[in-house]
């Protein structure tokens, strides 16, 4: 178990730079999730940490030592792959002991370790089967078991749940989280699924285009997205972003709509209100749960009401996802079930403290520019 320091790392394949100036640091026992759309470089970064690809420039530290030039086996890491990568010709037991065999761990100790992880992961009855005879979830457990017996400084997970069906994915997610809580290991986990990132991580790095867009705790990233990309990537449904224009009082913004007329949003409780000037074009961000149609949503001064025409109502059970149009964009509001009907006017409450403002050109959060 150890800290991980990534200092200014760049990776290029020939002339193509796929990772640019990546810097981040996590402490002992943290759970770092690298999240982003496909092609954002998150798996490449994981391969750099594992030593499966070489680092073009920058420094990588696991524990106290620079590991740039160490081969994977000398980095004291273990990795769980997306396809599980179980050796097809070996039994589950042989899969788990293969690495220990290579390192020359005595047989007695091997047997103890296998028993230990088999009990921990409940795969004791599978030890003599081959990977082809296992279900997806069982293979996943074996792959994790193979990583666990190494007792490494650092665990690496490369999209370990994306080959499982939806129900199993949720179960395994919880199991991985429990495992982390119990063992307290340092983990780096790659996924494109923002829900996995939010639920598992102690730190998230949101990546896009080979650059870290934002690095922080899940709650911080959710509450204060640094730009429109992060705002729209994290959260399900994601943050609503729509264009508006700051009114002449500098304390509110006018949003054009096709059906509901022009709406004026009050920005007086918005942290970023000092950053805007009258007449400025801005992007307004509102999380779906910042809407309501039932009081109370917060302290009275923090709430504003607007009348909007409802386009579509999508019931999910606990909530209705209600789609309205603001500034030419589809905006999703999470409301009480069965509280409104499509094609009718509804009075919505908006929590003014939850509004985020972005620059219309750079798409950066105005609070942070």
């Amino acid at each position: 178990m150890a800290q991980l320091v990534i200092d200014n790392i760049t990776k290029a394949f020939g002339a193509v730079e796929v990772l640019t100036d990546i810097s981040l640091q996590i402490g002992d026992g943290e759970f770092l999730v690298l999240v982003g759309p496909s092609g954002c470089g998150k798996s490449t970064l994981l391969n750099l940490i594992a030593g499966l690809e070489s680092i073009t420039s920058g420094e990588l530290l696991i524990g106290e030592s620079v590991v740039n030039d160490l081969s994977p086996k000398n980095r004291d890491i273990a990795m769980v792959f997306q396809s599980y990568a179980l050796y097809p010709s070996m039994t589950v037991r042989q899969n788990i002991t293969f690495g220990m065999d290579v390192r020359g761990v005595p047989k007695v100790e091997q047997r103890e370790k296998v028993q230990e992880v088999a009990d921990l992961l409940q795969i004791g009855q599978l030890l003599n089967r081959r990977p082809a005879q296992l279900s997806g979830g069982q293979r996943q457990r074996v792959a994790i078991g193979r990583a666990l017996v190494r007792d490494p400084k650092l665990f690496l997970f490369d999209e370990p749940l994306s080959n499982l069906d939806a129900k199993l994915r949720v179960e395994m997610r919880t199991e991985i989280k429990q495992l982390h809580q119990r063992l307290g290991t340092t983990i780096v986990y790659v996924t494109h699924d923002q829900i996995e990132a939010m639920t598992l991580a102690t730190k998230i790095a949101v990546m896009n285009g080979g650059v870290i867009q934002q690095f922080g705790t899940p709650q911080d990233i959710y509450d204060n997205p640094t730009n429109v990309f992060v705002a729209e990537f994290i959260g399900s449904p994601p943050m609503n972003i729509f264009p508006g224009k700051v009114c002449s009082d500098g304390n509110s913004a006018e949003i054009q709509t096709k059906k509901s007329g022009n709406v004026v949003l009050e920005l007086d409780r918005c942290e970023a209100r000092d950053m805007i000037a009258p007449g400025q074009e801005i992007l307004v961000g509102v999380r779906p749960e910042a809407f309501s149609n039932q009081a109370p949503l917060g302290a009275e001064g923090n709430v504003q009401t607007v009348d909007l025409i409802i386009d579509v109502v999508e019931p999910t059970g606990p909530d209705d996802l209600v789609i309205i149009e603001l500034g030419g964009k589809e905006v999703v509001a999470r409301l009480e079930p069965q509280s409104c009907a499509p094609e009718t006017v509804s009075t919505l409450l908006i929590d003014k403290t939850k509004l985020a403002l972005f620059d219309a050109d750079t798409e950066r959060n105005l609070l942070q520019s």
Partner: protein
Amino acid sequence: MISRILIYASLIVLAVIFLLPLWVLIITSLKDLDEIYAGGIMDLPQNPSLQAWARAWGTVCVGLNCTGLKAFYANTFMMAIPSVFLSTFFGAILGYILIKWRFKNSELVFGLILFGAFMPFQAILIPVSQTLSYMGVRDPVLSLIIIHTTYGIPFTTLFFRNYYVTFPDELVNAALIDGAGFFRIFFKILLPVSTPIIVVAVIFQFTGIWNDFLFGVSFASGKDVPVTVALNNIVNVTTGRKQYDLDMAAAVLAALPTLLVYIVAGKYFLRGLTAGSVKG
């Protein structure tokens, strides 16, 4: 239903056409010479006898050696088995390197190796004999082993490379992280799942090497020649009437091992060929 019948009918007709020579070969070998010269090539033998087979196997004279084909069987096996083993092994290693340890210009190297597969035998006879004498190799069996191994490597490399393309890189990465090296990954992870393509390579190499005539006749002589050359010497050197019964029996005997290999491993051969050609 009618199309079924058509399919089976045409398959049966084709099978008969292809098997007819073998049938003639076998019934002729069982007849005596007078019966053969009396004509009626398709007639069944009146007094079937294995006498020609016994002579072909045990006593017929090939040049000066009246030991039958059995001594030359041994020559061919001694040359074919090491050649098949070595060319398959090197092909597997090369295929593994070309796919799982890619290096700069590895595709170009693969192209160059493949070029060897299109080299006609006749074109390299003289360079090969010069190279062998430069290496100081005079033993005919060793010469043939070197030639057949070298000539086989382009084909076996192609087979294994195309087979290993479908093998996930993640498994190699997992083994690397587990601390396994180049050879351990090959022997413990890849080779155990390579049976179909090993069968393909072995059949392909074995039939090719067993049936080789040109290299055998060029680099061996006397009692060292492989069975194909011995067969040629039996058939082409006769005094008096041509011994068709003996020739037929000897021909079947010379072809028997390749035939057996196809019968035993034929279904793996088909499976392996298609498995290798899915990708790459």
